[in-house]
């Protein structure tokens, strides 16, 4: 559904977003996430890598806010550092998928016909490989590292992002402003980039925001299976995986990063819902 530039006013959207409880809460959590990512290392009270034989398995206290792990490392500090990996890599993966998918889907929707059909069928084929397994294959091939996990998640997300972009593009294509541009003789590139994309951006951003939550969990799951971040990185999913075997001695080792993952994922979900409502004030959906 096209939104004319008049309504698509950043300020209005912003205020509408903050007016809803989901939007407000989601934005707050997002703000927290941004702070963690940018200033995390500076805020850490302890060196996240420092091991200490005397401080092993300490419960949360005033000294160690979230307790310590099996090597005596401060969990709060590790969480702060790990925020960078978990949050920014998940956002990166989703953003890349969004870009590629939006482009693919819009082009396909605009061109239509055989090309559209072929492209979509191929993307469907790729989608029939379960995300996790696809990511697993890619990571095994490229080597286990957090960046490769990002790449894997991106590739796995592209088909569904493309599909969404395409359906929005299809609807947009029939609109008058596109036909007018064609009548004017504008090039395909111009139409796609300057006319269609801006109107497609909104629903895609909503979808992307919710996808980030999924990416965070997927990233954590990959690390849990040993395919994402590698020890000794303080990535949250990896911390949960490593902490499982210590659960009976030190449950906070697993609960803290688990809560962190859940909180950020909830935040992005809330934000996505809030954005959806804010961008479509009448409550209708395209």
């Amino acid at each position: 559904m096209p939104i004319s530039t008049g309504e698509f006013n950043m300020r209005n959207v912003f205020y509408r977003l903050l007016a809803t409880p989901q939007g407000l809460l989601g934005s707050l959590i997002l703000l927290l996430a941004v702070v963690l990512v940018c200033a995390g290392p500076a805020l850490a009270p302890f060196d996240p890598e420092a091991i200490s034989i005397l401080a092993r398995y300490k419960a949360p206290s005033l000294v160690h806010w979230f307790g310590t792990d099996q090597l005596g490392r401060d969990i709060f500090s590790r969480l702060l550092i790990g925020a960078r990996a978990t949050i920014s890599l998940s956002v990166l993966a989703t953003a890349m998928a969004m870009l590629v998918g939006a482009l693919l889907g819009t082009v396909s929707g605009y061109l239509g016909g055989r090309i559209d059909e072929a492209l979509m069928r191929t993307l469907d084929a790729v989608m029939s490989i379960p995300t996790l397994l696809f990511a697993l294959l890619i990571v095994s091939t490229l080597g286990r590292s957090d960046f490769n996990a990002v790449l894997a998640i991106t590739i796995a997300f592209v088909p569904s992002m493309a599909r969404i972009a395409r359906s929005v593009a299809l609807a947009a294509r029939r609109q008058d402003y596109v036909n007018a541009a064609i009548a004017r003789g504008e090039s395909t590139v111009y139409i796609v980039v300057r006319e269609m994309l801006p109107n497609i951006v909104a629903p895609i951003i909503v979808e992307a925001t919710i996808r980030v939550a999924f990416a965070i969990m997927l990233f954590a799951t990959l690390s849990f299976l040993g395919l994402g971040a590698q020890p000794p990185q303080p990535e949250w999913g990896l911390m949960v995986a490593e902490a499982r075997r210590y659960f009976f001695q030190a449950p906070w080792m697993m609960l803290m990063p688990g809560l962190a993952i859940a909180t950020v994922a909830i935040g992005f979900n809330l934000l996505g819902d809030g954005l959806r409502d804010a961008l479509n004030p009448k409550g209708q959906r395209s």
Partner: protein
Amino acid sequence: MTAAYLTKRLLLVVYTLLIVSLLVFAITQLLPADAAVTLLGQSATPEALAALRARLGLDQPAWVQFSHWLMAVLHGDLGVSMRNGQPVLGSLLDALGRSLLLAGCSLLLMLLIAIPLGIVAAVRRGRPVDLIIGVLSYIGVSLPEFVTATLLVLLFADFWQLLPATGYVPLGDNFGEGIRHLILPTLTVSMIMVAHVSRMVRSEMIDVLETDYIRAARLKGLSRRRVLLRHALRNGLLPTITIVALDVGYLLGGIVVVEEIFNIPGIGRELLVAVAARDLPAIQGGVLILAATYCLVNFVADLAYAYLDRRIQYA
């Protein structure tokens, strides 16, 4: 449902499976360390490696390996596992059966919980019930499966000792025990889907409840309940079916974590092990079977969709 439509669908399925097989094969060719290395481990010598590779057919060029495999598949033979020499098709189908059982139970549980929850939340929109359901949904959607699984096991199996911690007794062997062993894994898998689908149902129902179609029905004097059940529900369910169909792919492969934790030898776990061992026939076979299942489920979903919305035509 015309013959032309069915033929087209079938061709599409074949195309999909071909693309999938090619893609996966291409990726496996890039994997570092092959099955010979993983099988021999630290007892690998250059002669041993060469001998094993010849025996497994790994010394031939990639396109030859792929065409051999393809030919065999067309005859219904998925080859033997490089790890233990057992036929791939048999063990994968067994594993698939177990995953489908878990998936099926989870879907059932999910539908039984999510649809009523979504409807209640939609009908009582804005009231405390809606809010509570909403909050629970957000939490449900944001907890990764391995966290949920571990917590459930710790609560129900270790702490309260109500349910068994491990997940698989064949229903054929002992139905009661089999069901007991399925409870925790099913709960884990369905939790995320319940949260997801109930929110979906809720927003669909809200939309539908406000359409002219419903208003017209109400004006006609039909009772609220009847309106809900016969008209709103059917239309609200359509997108749900699409979501569910899309989720099956996630279900089958993605529950590898649940299969690992609850010790269910399902197809997700088989594939994980196969990739780690670079067992090419098992990897290829597994992905093929999964993709085929996904296509089948989508097909069934499309049929269900068409049945529920008689206004949609298939050429």
